[in-house]
């Protein structure tokens, strides 16, 4: 019972716990990957499928493949989706990027106004935003539908069943991000902008050249969060987008889950696909997510 072996036991226990924990997190993830590569559209029972099949991926990516229809005769038919699911993937990426970009633009400028400018009813507006944002978007579904229908009469490209219309509604989710960015702006000393003003910067230049670069981390966070939320948003998209060619990934994936038949294989392939842009985004944004970007500017 020396202290060395005691420490070893403790270390082993800690590692065992961590490994268990990681397995708990990884298992669902691996299951989905496995399911996308297995034959047949069943919920998978093994982590490593007995038979590897690329059929689900071919279906999702729109590559024609032969499927056995009759097991006894060995009869096959060539299968290709009417609306290739990869299209939903591109739809989702397009909408998420545009909506997130719009969110950045709107929330960044609004947050600047709330953090730095004086105007009437500022506090009331801020609180109003916060309260409004507490209601889930779904509750206003009927309203969104009616609004888009109305807009559609004048501008069909922004009405129901259009990506522009959906993006418009998504931009309404801006208030929480305004609060986030405002909070960050308020940690930045106003004397830095005053310095810039004395140095001859217009308010716009001070915002663009000084405040924005210092705020890169919060903008990266906001972009990632909104991107993820729009990539996986279902209720609004499912109501607004009505035809298969307009669907987003979430709506499309859901269409594989019929009451009587759940096509888990195809669903999983789509799920894996949706993880890719999020991962890529994280890798790109990582370099903005550095701490200490505002360090050294002021001493409190």
């Amino acid at each position, binding site marked *: 019972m020396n202290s060395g072996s005691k420490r070893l036991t403790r270390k082993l226990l800690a590692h065992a716990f961590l490994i268990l924990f990681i397995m708990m997190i990884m298992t669902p993830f691996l299951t989905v990957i496995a399911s996308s590569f297995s034959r047949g559209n069943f919920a998978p029972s093994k982590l490593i499928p007995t038979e590897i099949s690329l059929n689900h991926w071919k279906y999702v990516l729109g590559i024609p493949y032969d499927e056995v229809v009759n097991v006894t005769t060995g009869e096959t038919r060539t299968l290709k989706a009417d609306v290739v699911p990869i299209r939903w993937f591109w739809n989702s990426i397009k909408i998420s990027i545009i909506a997130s970009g719009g969110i950045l633009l709107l929330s960044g400028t609004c947050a600047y106004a709330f953090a730095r400018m004086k105007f009437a009813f500022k506090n009331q507006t801020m609180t109003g935003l916060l309260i409004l944002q507490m209601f889930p978007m779904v509750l206003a579904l009927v309203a969104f539908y009616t609004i888009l229908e109305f807009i559609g009469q004048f501008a069909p490209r922004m009405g129901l069943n259009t990506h522009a219309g959906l993006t418009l509604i998504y931009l309404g989710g801006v208030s929480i991000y305004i609060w986030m960015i405002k909070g960050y702006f308020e940690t930045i000393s106003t*004397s830095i902008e*005053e310095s810039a*003003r*004395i*140095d001859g910067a217009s308010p716009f230049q001070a915002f663009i050249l000084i405040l924005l670069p210092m705020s890169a981390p919060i903008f990266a966070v906001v972009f990632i969060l909104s991107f993820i939320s729009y990539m996986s948003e279902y209720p609004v998209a499912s109501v607004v987008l009505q035809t298969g060619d307009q669907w987003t990934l979430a709506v499309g994936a859901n269409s594989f889950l019929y009451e009587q038949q759940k096509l888990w294989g195809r669903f999983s392939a789509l799920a894996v696909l949706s993880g890719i842009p999020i991962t890529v985004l994280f890798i790109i944004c990582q370099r903005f997510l550095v701490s200490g*970007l505002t360090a*050294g*500017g*002021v001493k409190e």
Partner: protein
Amino acid sequence: MAEHNGKVVINKLEKTYLDGKGKPAFTAVKGIDLIIEDGEFMVLVGPSGCGKSTTLRMVAGLEDISEGTISIGDTVVNKLEPKDRGIAMVFQNYALYPHLSVFTNMAFSLQLSKVPKAEIKKRVDIAAEILGLSDMLERKPKALSGGQRQRVAVGRAIVRNPKVFLFDEPLSNLDAKMRVQMRTEISNLHERLGTTILYVTHDQVEAMTMGDRICVMNAGEIMQVADPLTLYKHPENMFVASFIGSPPMNLIHGKLKLDNDQAYFIENEGDTHPLGTIKLKGPSAQKAKEIGSRPVVLGIRPEHLYERSQHENEAEFTAPVSLAEPMGAETLLHMDMANHRLIGRIQNDRLFKRREEVTLYLHLDKCSFFDPTTEQVL
């Protein structure tokens, strides 16, 4: 650099802050007049919250002016943008751009006004040379020490080649040693550039050591403007008397009495009143006769109390020591008097004990008299 006209004229300047609803909430600066000559080092000093920063920020153009005018070099600047006023400002918290290098921090204003690259480099290099920052131009502010950061902030001001430098408590975030060093550096800089400086501080030592002239403010008003020695020797009111000097001037409440061609100062009654009645002699008696019999406050600096008699016109008194602070070359003796505490700065080579009775001599020629109600000097 002889062309700059950095004369600043502040005329009936007033600042009233508005509350959230646009109603007047607080008057921070109450109609002050001040003239700062071209090339002068003017220090604004006063307790925290007296309106120094507000005044400075109005000169800078960062704060709207409620009433009155400010002119810089014969131009009224009330409506001018900060960049067009010919000023540069150094903030208490440095306010550097943390994402930009030292070079870009200093070059920022020149880049904005589209100065040619070569010229920018030249001017930044000169400023960096003056401030000893030449080796650090590529660093980010966070890789610098506090003193170096403040130097960058000063450098940023220098490259703009302003008519007036504005400093808002630039040294208060530095440690004591760095503060003394930067104090000298800023004084040297003023010597070298000859540019007008308006320097805000709450530290009277900084004010005394750096300023050509000092403007003492209190509660939004100017109490006195004078050179350091005048301020010290001839304070115009009790506020300046107690604000300037450490420890401050002793202020003893009492009254003057003229009797048979003799003048007396009688200390107000209290539990103990060691001074009691003192007979005034020489210039102080002369002064008392001019003032006449009336309540007054007698002001005397701690260093004008002595343990040994050494002047002709002195008042002798005995009091118990309530606290002795040996400082090495001198000892600060605290003595509880009627309604206040009297402090003496005694040159000595012995230790004093608590409650020890000491006999001290008060140099009457150095006394000032103040009106107890208006607090002005008589």
